Structure formats: structure tokens, C-alpha cells
């Protein structure tokens, strides 16, 4: 059997390029993944295993090709490179909520995502919410031990690509008069936040198109909380950064 060595008299394979130079693949501007675009020397269809370097973005939607190596598998051109496209957005300011102010935005440094590839993206939204302070219970005798607990709640709305998704989240707040426990230090439990995550799948995002998302929260009327949970009162709910933890929006490319 014949071997060919370029830059070597001892080829270590059927074809061995051993110069300090690259192997330059045929540079072809493919039309899309199912159009052969090129032909075999005898004018017939191209053989399985044909490799080219595609020079341009071309084709639309799931037919799109991007610059890089492509291999013909008999049916279509298969990209030989690793398609990774991942981004995370982290809340960058705390929010105090209120029942009477409608939807309040959760802020991010950027709320725009531009896919590198056409295809399916998974969007994972992680939110958290903690209630404000509950009303003081009325006790006939300050020496009595009592607890007062109420749940505050609201709805997160995440909008992306003209669709809105909502998730409700509740959290308990409370007062604990433990004068008999602790020598008279009154306990106020607020911002005992709960966390929730939901995922949506966007099946056909377009490469190079900018998509904006919005994350808002609408706190409900909170009877039993100070000022009924009105904005900027002690009864207001919390979407705090709490150190490093914040609401996050993560977008991951998961395939065509």
C-alpha cells in the first residue's frame, strides 16, 4: 500500500504532513448544511468523509452553517467544532417591594442576549423573595409568650421573546416575643427568603439577533404585615442581594 509523506520520508499514516506548516483545507462557502455545494471530481455526489473549511455564515435557521470545519456524513454537513454558548446574568441591586406599586423590575447590568448559533436554548431563572415585617400582635400582658406569623407573597414575571412566564413565591415572616426566653429581646423575623428556579426552553432562537429579557415582581396585598406590605415600609418584601446571592438568569445553548 502506498503512503504519502510531506516533509518526511517515513510517513506514519496513509498521509503524513510533517512540515512546520499547516494543512490547508479546501476553502468552500457552503450554502447550508444539506446542500452539498461542491462536487466530486467525477461530477457525482461527494463522498462520505469529505472535509472542508466553510468560510462564511450562510443558510437560515436549522440549515445555518458557520465558519469552521465541516464533514459530509452522506446526508448533511456536520460541524466539527464545539458549539458552546453560555451566559449568566446576576441581579445587581436590591429591591424592596410593595403591594400598591405594581410590577417592579429586578435590575441587571445587561438584559440582552445575542445567540451565537441558531437553535435551542435553555433559560434557567432563579428567584428569591423574603417577606417584610409582620404586624405586632396585641397581647394583654407583655409577659406572655406569643408568636405571630404571616406569609407574604407575590408573582415573578419573566418575559423573553414576547412570552411571559410567571411563578408565585411565598415566605413566612414572624414575631416571637420570647421575653421568657431571652430576658426581653423581642425577635423580628423578616426576609426569611425562599428560592425557586424554573426553566424555559426556547426552541428556535436566531443567531445574531438581540433578545431582551425582563424580570419583574408583583407583590400582593399583605394583610397582617406592617402597612399591609406597602412600598418602602417595614412591611415591604425583600428581593435582596443578601451578600452575593441574587436572582440569576442563565442561558445555555443546548443544540439545534
Amino acid at each position, binding site marked *: 500500500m502506498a503512503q504519502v*509523506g510531506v516533509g518526511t*520520508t517515513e510517513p506514519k499514516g496513509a*498521509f503524513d504532513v510533517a512540515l512546520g*506548516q499547516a494543512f490547508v483545507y479546501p476553502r468552500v462557502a457552503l450554502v447550508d448544511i444539506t446542500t452539498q455545494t461542491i462536487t466530486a471530481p467525477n461530477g457525482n455526489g461527494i463522498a462520505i468523509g469529505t472535509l472542508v473549511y466553510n468560510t462564511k455564515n450562510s443558510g437560515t435557521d436549522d440549515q445555518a452553517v458557520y465558519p469552521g470545519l465541516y464533514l459530509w456524513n452522506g446526508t448533511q454537513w456536520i460541524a466539527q467544532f464545539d458549539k*458552546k454558548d453560555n451566559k449568566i446574568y446576576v441581579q445587581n441591586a436590591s429591591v424592596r417591594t410593595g403591594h400598591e406599586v405594581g410590577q417592579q423590575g429586578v435590575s441587571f447590568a445587561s438584559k440582552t442576549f445575542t445567540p451565537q448559533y441558531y437553535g435551542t436554548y435553555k433559560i434557567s431563572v432563579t428567584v428569591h423573595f423574603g417577606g417584610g415585617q409582620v404586624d405586632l400582635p396585641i397581647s394583654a400582658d407583655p409577659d406572655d409568650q406569643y408568636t405571630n406569623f404571616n406569609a407574604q407573597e407575590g408573582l415573578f414575571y419573566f418575559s423573553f421573546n414576547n412570552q411571559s412566564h410567571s411563578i408565585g413565591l411565598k415566605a413566612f415572616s*414572624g414575631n416571637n416575643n420570647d421575653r421568657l426566653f431571652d430576658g426581653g429581646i423581642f425577635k423580628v423575623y423578616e426576609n426569611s427568603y425562599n428560592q425557586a428556579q424554573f426553566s424555559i426552553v426556547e426552541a428556535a432562537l436566531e443567531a445574531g439577533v438581540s433578545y431582551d429579557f425582563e424580570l419583574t415582581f408583583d407583590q400582593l396585598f399583605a394583610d397582617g404585615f406592617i402597612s399591609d406590605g406597602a412600598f418602602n415600609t417595614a412591611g415591604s418584601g425583600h428581593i435582596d442581594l443578601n451578600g452575593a*446571592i441574587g436572582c440569576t438568569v442563565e442561558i445555555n445553548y443546548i443544540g439545534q
Partner: protein
Amino acid sequence: MDAPKSSHNINLLIFFLVLSAIGGARAQVGINTTDPQGILDIQSTHSGVVMPRIALTSTQLAAPATNPQGGNIPAGSVIYNTARTSNGSGDVSPGLYVWTGDQWTPQFDRKQYELFESQLGLRTEPLSSRSAVTVPGLSSQNFTPSYTGIYKIVISVNYGGGTCKIPSEGNGLSNSDADLNIARASGQFDFDLDGAHYLIPVSAYSTNYGTNVTPRKKYFAIWEEFTLTQYVNFTAGTAKSFNLSFTQNEAPEFLLDGQGEGRGYVAYDLPCRVEFIYMGDE
């Protein structure tokens, strides 16, 4: 690296093959075939194609690959890179790379995933100094990235309170007497990644009924899980040390003021976890 030994002879060999395969004005090369199906058709059942083996220094530098005609190397140039670099940007690892006109792009799948889990059953108590306790299994660990680029870190922690105190009736009117104590235990996890601190405050409620309630129930270790997700940039080959610790807040509403049965619970049913996942170039 293999040095060129006798390119003159080799060119002759190729020339011979080209002649033997040429069908018309367009030249094709067939190796072990007289009917090449492409510009270069290599038939073999036992040998592969050996690509130029070049030690790249950066994805941003074409060198040491050269264009024999001078000037830049063209897009579509392919080499097998033999080097692994760890400079923090533009790093390469062994594998097939193609020059896309302004950089070398890997033509292979890069994946790395590592999961670290804590041991179960850590009891926590408020310390007068508020000094942190480390979470066994997640303290003084190391993660060594295989690639330079973005890693996703997922830190999942869980915490539940211990047994809270039995409420006491006091001396007031009966309609305000206590039958139930609901108390919150709280604290803060600190994930220390080589000096960068990621803080996760946590809390959970426990309950205990008064002694006059039958049957008297108490609920503790009602843990809640919290997850923090971050993307960070790592450098290939540079080990990152990390440490997960927890500081419990004062807990006077709990038995023994948070000592003994009043201690909190970390990883009661479920380990705390730290995951590292390679996500791609910076």
C-alpha cells in the same frame, strides 16, 4: 518535532501520484485510489491522516505555523496542536485546531465536570466568637481546571434549625398564653474560592408546642436548600483551593440557647455540594 528530512523526494512522490490520478484539467490526488472522490482522497483501512504536529503558544498567534509563500496563513489551515499552555488567556490544549483568519479554534469537544459533596450530619451551634465551622468534605479542597475559560460554579447548601424552646405560659390572661413557639434559626455559608468570598445567608423555622398541648409535637431540621450559581474565569492547570464554612447566628429561642439539642443542622438529609462545569472560552 519531526524535522523535514527530504522534501525534494517527497515532492517527487506526490507528483507521481498526481500524474497517476489526473483525469483532466483539474488535478486530484488519490492515495491508494485511482478514482479520487475529492481533491485529496486517501483510501486506507489501517492508516490515518497524520496532521502537521505543531506546538502552538496561543490561540491568538498563527506562529509557529507559517505560509510557505510568505504572509499570513490562510483561514482553513489545520494542525494538530501538541502543546498545553496555561497563561490565562488564549490557552491551547492538545488537539485539532483550525485557523479561522484571526485565531486558532479547537475542533474538538471540551468538557470538564467535577462534583464535590459534603459529609452528612453536621451540627452547628452559635459560637461566642462567631467563628465559622468548616463543612466536612468541602473544606480545604482543590479543583484543577483543564481549560482556560469560563467555569460555572454551583454551590448548593442546606440548613435547618434545631429544637426550639418549649413556650412558657407566663402570668398573663389565658387568651394570650403561649401554646406554640415558632423560632427561626439562621446563619451564613461562606464559600471561599482562593480568597474570593461568596456568601449565602440561610434560615429555617422550627416549632415546639407548650406543655399543655397533647400530643406535644416539636419540629426541627426542617431544612431549606439554597443554590448560588456563578460564572468565573479559570486558568488551565492552576489549582483553585476552596473552603465552605458556616457561621450560625445567636439562637436564644432554641434549647440551651442553641447548644445541645438546640444546635442547627447542615446536610441533615442531603449533602451540601459544589460543582465545577466548563462552559467555554472567555
